[in-house]
């Protein structure tokens, strides 16, 4: 359904109207569905997603965090007030507040869950951004333009997953080793996980996925029925964070 709507948006040339007219399009698109899917070549479909297998995630291991933060020049500010993080851990109960109960078993209670931006299908951060500094790509990656961001932090209020960090101060002194291939940020802009867009462009997989020795992270195109992510989603029961909010998170968890 989502795919066809996007296809229809393109065909109708309505893409620019974007989110504001989305509910209307939702209704219309059903009728136009057949028409849209018949036009070949328009529906280049790709939807990047990740599966996090918390069963494989070793307690105390921070390989993925180190890899991501290293490659993306994420400053290491210990102070929780000013901290910046792209991928991090939080206790299971905090990550999945709507799944929490007194008798959580399977070793999940209090155990850390890997969190990152969900690259939502219907991202509220994109909807609220007044400058399009946060935007969603065709392949589903929710991206940031650090040069356009005015630092209003509307997106931080809008993200229901706490995925966004603001540079409350100059981050550069807190970067231990600068990776010259990725830009450092200035104070006053927001940042978050970019699904390693810069690595994907070079044909590499995301740094966190690459760094995990236990195969706790799997990345791929969920629109491709033969992809590894799809295979895992088929054979395992997975959950997502706060699915009831309608944001359509694209990080799936095996617990």
């Amino acid at each position, binding site marked *: 359904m989502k795919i066809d709507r996007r296809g229809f948006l393109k065909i109708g040339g309505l893409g620019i109207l*974007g*989110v*504001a007219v989305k509910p209307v399009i939702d209704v219309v698109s059903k009728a136009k569905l057949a028409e849209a899917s018949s036009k070949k070549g328009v529906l280049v479909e790709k939807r990047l997603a990740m599966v996090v297998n918390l069963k494989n995630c070793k307690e105390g291991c921070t390989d993925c965090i180190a890899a991501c933060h290293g490659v993306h020049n994420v400053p290491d500010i210990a102070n*929780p*007030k*000013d*901290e*910046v993080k792209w991928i991090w851990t*939080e206790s299971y*109960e*905090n*990550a999945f*507040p709507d799944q929490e109960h007194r008798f959580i078993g399977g070793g999940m209670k209090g155990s850390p869950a890997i969190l990152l931006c969900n690259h939502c299908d219907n991202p*509220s951060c*994109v*909807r*609220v*951004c*007044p*400058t*399009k*500094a946060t935007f969603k790509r065709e392949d589903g990656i929710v991206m940031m333009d650090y040069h*356009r*961001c*005015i*630092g*209003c*932090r*509307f997106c*931080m*209020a*809008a*993200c*229901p*997953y*706490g995925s966004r*960090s*603001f*540079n*409350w*101060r*100059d981050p550069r002194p807190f970067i231990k080793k600068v990776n010259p291939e990725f830009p450092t940020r*200035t*104070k*006053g*802009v*927001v940042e978050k996980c970019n699904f390693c867009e810069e690595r994907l462009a070079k044909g590499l997989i995301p740094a966190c996925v690459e760094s995990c020795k236990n195969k706790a992270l799997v990345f791929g195109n969920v629109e491709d029925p033969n992809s590894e992510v799809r295979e895992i989603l088929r054979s395992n029961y997975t959950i997502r964070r*706060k699915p009831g*909010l*309608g*944001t359509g998170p694209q990080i799936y968890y095996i617990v």
Partner: protein
Amino acid sequence: MFEKALIGSKKYWGLAIGLLAIMGVGAIFYLQQWNYGLGITGMSRDVSWGLYIAQFTFLVGVAASAVMVVLPYYLHNYKAFGRITILGEFVAVASVIMCLVFIIADLGQPTRALNIVLYPTPSSILFWDMIVLNGYLLLNILIGWNVLASERKSVPPPAWVKPLIYISIPWAVSIHTVTAFIYAGLPGRGFWLTAIMAPRFLASAFAGGPALLILLSLIIRRFTKFDPGKDAIQNLGKIVAYAMSINVFFILLEIFTVFYSQIPEHMHHFEYIFAGLGEHGKLVPWMWASVSLAVVSLILLVNPITRRRESILALACVIVFFSLWIEKGFVLVVTGFIPSPLGRVFEYTPTVPEIFITLGIWAMGFLILAILYKIAIAVKEEIEA
């Protein structure tokens, strides 16, 4: 007319210099913020909006003072307000300017502020807020200035002003509605996710704006030869009484829904402000202060005997103003972030630089207001003499 702002008594100049001094201190602290970044404030990764955005939200409300005098005068021909429409319009001008400056002060990259215009994004409520606020500012400047200029020449205002006045009435409603939408449309922020946000904004605005206007009118009567009129003040008092009652009623509605439904994502925020969560309860005394002030103000305002006594009415207005300031100028914004979507309670306390920058912007607003009022009153005194 502007020359009238440049001739004034010692008191006028004293006030202006005092306000300029506070602005200067604020500017020095802003320079610090400019160099260091917003980390100089108490805001954090969890509580990412604080005092600045809260002041902006509160002041959008104060800007409503204009419509509450313009509407009765122009739509219902209520003559007593004719003398003070200009006072309401100039309060609107000063408060909208403060709103805009508070937004700029809150931006991480203020030099890029124009990106909102360069890359217009209709899906963003901030984009619409920019339009309605600037529009309201322009309307009130045009209307206020032209009506005053023609009053001075004892001619009716130019014909094109009338439609602008009519437009300004629904426009005033729009600034509160759109500002409320900034909050009321965000998934995962249970404290704000309520359809009654916009009505609440309107009710508190129609209480707070006129309350300030009453106080200003009383000050003007005291210090100048211009009398805004007993009737006008009394009727503004009634408006404050009604609006404040409705505001308190709306808050009670929220409290019912939240505590009867027992949905944690909504309830935790209210528990945080009324009782505190665990050892975290910095806002509890503030919230109870706001509640108590609201109750006292209602007793004074609803009772006609107390309301008719101007000194008590003035006291009630001060109380209304502070009660609303705590509720809207602080608690409403901060509590939306506490607890965070991840259930973490990270409290917020504004820092010294943040407080002085805030005071500096308020001082700037009052200076603008003082200058505009000086002009308006000089014209009025001239006519009456």
